[in-house]
Structures are given as structure tokens and as C-alpha cells.
């Protein structure tokens, strides 16, 4: 029982990270209809920024706040300078730019900070004894912190989309960019804000996951996490925030259970199980489990 609980806890924690990065993907997809392949590497880059700031003996919380800021600015700049000019041409061009960014950001991080593994400090208490016992299972401080971050972010996003003008305009642009612009919405500013927001959310996912990840902070840290996050976003149909969160948690828990209980699936097959989940969902329901088939009256 306590083993089951421990696997559940670890699954929910990894799942929360997938959910965070999936939220970043969904925010961009809803605005621009693009799956941002560079999202994981942008998160990696901003995490390196946070790590570097901690090595300058700056407090971890400051480093995280700065990484979020850098993530926002980089996201917005990427939209304005790289995505928008090609978006007018076609979707394939956007995809290729995103793939270019994917390798570009990774190489840039390698160039600036080297390829050896870094130890990213955790913002939460994560010592051997920082846990509370639940039914014999240990719930560590950093797991609780990650859950809290996810819940907090969901709360903030709900407030943003429900109660603010910017949030309303983001939803309007996602629904129909031409109609929004005819109503006077500054579409280009809204798109840049959307990419910036997703850059900041990605940065949050990055700084939270690296202290927990088995390979810590290295140039390959985000690959598997990005794959799981894409699966989570797809699970929700790419345009549903709730779907992305549920998807992230389901994939995290499934992974933990599969690797825990099915002995043939070693740690190295985790990614494959996530991919398998994507394929099964796409077979069963091409719009994802939460995807909206838009209601249109003609």
C-alpha cells in the first residue's frame, strides 16, 4: 500500500511538471495554432539562466523570478522576430522555425554554459528528512512544492482568462483573430503576450523539474519531459487548459505505475509508454479527450 502511494505521489509530481509545460504549449497553440517544438528547449535555456544566477550567489527565489522574466521576454521576442514574419507564409514555415529554435537554443545553452551536468538547487525543502508521512508513504517537501506551483498557476490563469481584459482578448484572438481585430483588439500585442506567458510558464516548469530529474540539469534534460508534455497537451486536444493538466497528471501517474509494476518496462521505456498513450488517444479520438469541436452555425 505504501509502495503504491509512493508511486502515486511520484507520478503526480512528474505529472505536475508535464502539466505545467503542457499548459505553456496550449497557451501558444490557442493563440497561434502552432505546436511550439522549441518550448522545452526554451524552458531549458531559462533554467540555465536561473542556475547561473544561483552560482553568482543570488538567492534561489530571485533566480527563479528572473528566469520567469527572461522566459517571458524571450517568448515574446521569438514571436515578434521569428514566428510572425514567417507565419503569414504558411504553417510549415513556422514549424521549421520552431525546429531551428529547438536546436539553436540547445546549442546556445551548451556554448554558454558547457555540456557537463549542473546541480540546480531546489526552492523547496528537499533534505532527507523533509517529508510528512501519509499512510506509510513519504511525501517530500519538493513534491508538495511542485503541486502547489501547479495549483497556484491554474488559479492565476483562471483569473487571467475569466476576469481580465488581456485574458478576454487572448480568448477572442484564439477564437477568431480576424473578428477580434475588427473589434479593435491589438492582435499582434496579444500574440506576443501569449508567447511571453508560455515562455514564463515553461521557465517555471524547468526550474522546478531539474532538481527532481535523475539527470539534473544537462542539455538533454528537457527532451523526455517535452515529449511527455506534448502527449499531455494532445491528450487535452491541444486547446484545453483543463485537458492539459488532466493529461499531464494521467501520463505522470501511468508512467510511474507502468515502470513500477510491469517489470519489462524499465526506466528507459518510460518515454515509449508516453508515446504509446499519444498514439492510442489519437486513434480513439483525433481531437483529443478535451478538444473542442468548434460550434459553428452557417
Amino acid at each position: 500500500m505504501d509502495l503504491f502511494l509512493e508511486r502515486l505521489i511520484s507520478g503526480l509530481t512528474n505529472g505536475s511538471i508535464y502539466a505545467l509545460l503542457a499548459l505553456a504549449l496550449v497557451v501558444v497553440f490557442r493563440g497561434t495554432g502552432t505546436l511550439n517544438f522549441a518550448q522545452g528547449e526554451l524552458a531549458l535555456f531559462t533554467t540555465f539562466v536561473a542556475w547561473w544566477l544561483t552560482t553568482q550567489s543570488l538567492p534561489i527565489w530571485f533566480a527563479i523570478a528572473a528566469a520567469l522574466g527572461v522566459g517571458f521576454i524571450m517568448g515574446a521576442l521569438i514571436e515578434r522576430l521569428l514566428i510572425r514574419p514567417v507565419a503569414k507564409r504558411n504553417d510549415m514555415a513556422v514549424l521549421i522555425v520552431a525546429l531551428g529554435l529547438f536546436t539553436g537554443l540547445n546549442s546556445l545553452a551548451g556554448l554558454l554554459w558547457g555540456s557537463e551536468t549542473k546541480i540546480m538547487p531546489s526552492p523547496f525543502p528537499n533534505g532527507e528528512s523533509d517529508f510528512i508521512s501519509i499512510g506509510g508513504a513519504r511525501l517530500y517537501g519538493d513534491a508538495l512544492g511542485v503541486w502547489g506551483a501547479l495549483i497556484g498557476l491554474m488559479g492565476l490563469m483562471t483569473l487571467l482568462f475569466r476576469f481580465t481584459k488581456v485574458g478576454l482578448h487572448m480568448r477572442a484572438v484564439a477564437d477568431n483573430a480576424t473578428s477580434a481585430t475588427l473589434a479593435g483588439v491589438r492582435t499582434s500585442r496579444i500574440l506576443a503576450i501569449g508567447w511571453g506567458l508560455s515562455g514564463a510558464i515553461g521557465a517555471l516548469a524547468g526550474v522546478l523539474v531539474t532538481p527532481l530529474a535523475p539527470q539534473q540539469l544537462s542539455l538533454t534534460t528537457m527532451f523526455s519531459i517535452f515529449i511527455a508534455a506534448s502527449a499531455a497537451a494532445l491528450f487535452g486536444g491541444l486547446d484545453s487548459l483543463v485537458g492539459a493538466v488532466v493529461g499531464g497528471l494521467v501520463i505522470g501517474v501511468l508512467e510511474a505505475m507502468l515502470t513500477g509494476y510491469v517489470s519489462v518496462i524499465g526506466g528507459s521505456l518510460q518515454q515509449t509508454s508516453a508515446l504509446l498513450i499519444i498514439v492510442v488517444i489519437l486513434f480513439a479520438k483525433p481531437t483529443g479527450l478535451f478538444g473542442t469541436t468548434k460550434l459553428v452555425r452557417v
Partner: protein
Amino acid sequence: MLGANGAGKTTTMQAIAGLMSWRGSIELDGRPLPRRPEQVVRSGVSLVPQGRGTLGALTVLENLRVGAAVRTDAAGVSADIDRWCEVFPVLGRRSRQTAGTLSGGEQQMLAVARALMSRPRLLLCDEPSLGLAPIVVQELFATLARINETDGTAMLIVEQNAELAMDLASTVYLLDVGTIAASGTPADFRADDAVRTAYLGY
């Protein structure tokens, strides 16, 4: 603005609204209009596009609030929302329903109300009567006439039903292959036999 299918009515409207690039000049009150849609709205021109273009996933209320994107007077915006929900009672009744689930006629009301939310000096309506029951069209046109009278909002309306349009309009323009073939008061139009037989078909 009258004209056969393909005469260029929608093209004209879209050019004014900034949805396409154009050469020459478009002026309002003697001042040139900007070329980007959101700036055109800011200078007081609002378009109800052909086929409505409401935001289907957003509620009626949210659609109206998006219509006020260029405004910063929160109290005035709320007052206007109340006003249009009274003028178009169906919007008040369905304020929390998503726009995509409204009927065609209801969506047309919403599109007009949303365009009015920016408090335009000039309202452009591209075939607002398309697909509406005749009685609903009459109601809509009566409402537009009232708003024109009380608020002084200028209106440029594309309409296929020439008789209906001429009952409402003070000036009629007839478009033919991208140029104005004839213009004048409805009375002029009705009196001109050549125009009547060539374009109005009676």
C-alpha cells in the same frame, strides 16, 4: 450601397475596415483613415462583416466586452452593454450563452451590438439581412434607423433588397464592377427610368 453579386461591395467594406491593402485614399471627415483594422476601429469606424464573424466560443456578454476593446471607460462600457441588451432583448435573455449556439438572426443582432460597443461614428454593415426572416430584417432596420437618429451614428449598409434599402437610406450608391455607377437620393433613383430598369429590375 447596392450592387449585383461580385460588384465589389464586400471588397469596399473590407478596404475601409483595413482588412486588405489598397491604393488611393480613404477619408472620414476629411481625415485619412489608417490602414490597420484595430486603428480603423480606434478612429471611429466599425464593421459588421458579411457572415457576422461573432466569437463562437465566447458568451454573448464576452463578445460585447471584446467589442469595447478600444475603450477605457469601464462604467460607460457596462452602461452600453445594458443598453444594447435592452435594444436587442434576445441578447439580454441569452447573455451567458456562447455565441456559437445562437440562431443566425440572434448572431446578427450580436454582431451589430458588438460593433456598436466601440461607439463608432461610422457603422459599416455588410448585408446584415442575409439569411434573416423578413420580419426580423424590418425590426433590425428600424432599430438601426433609431440609433442613427438618437446617436447620430453614420451608417453605410450593403443591402440586396433595393426597396428595403431605399426606405432606410438618405443616399444610395450603386456599385458596378468596382465603380460607383450611380448615386443619389432614393427619390432620384426611383425617378430615373434608366437606372431603375438596368439595376433595380422593375
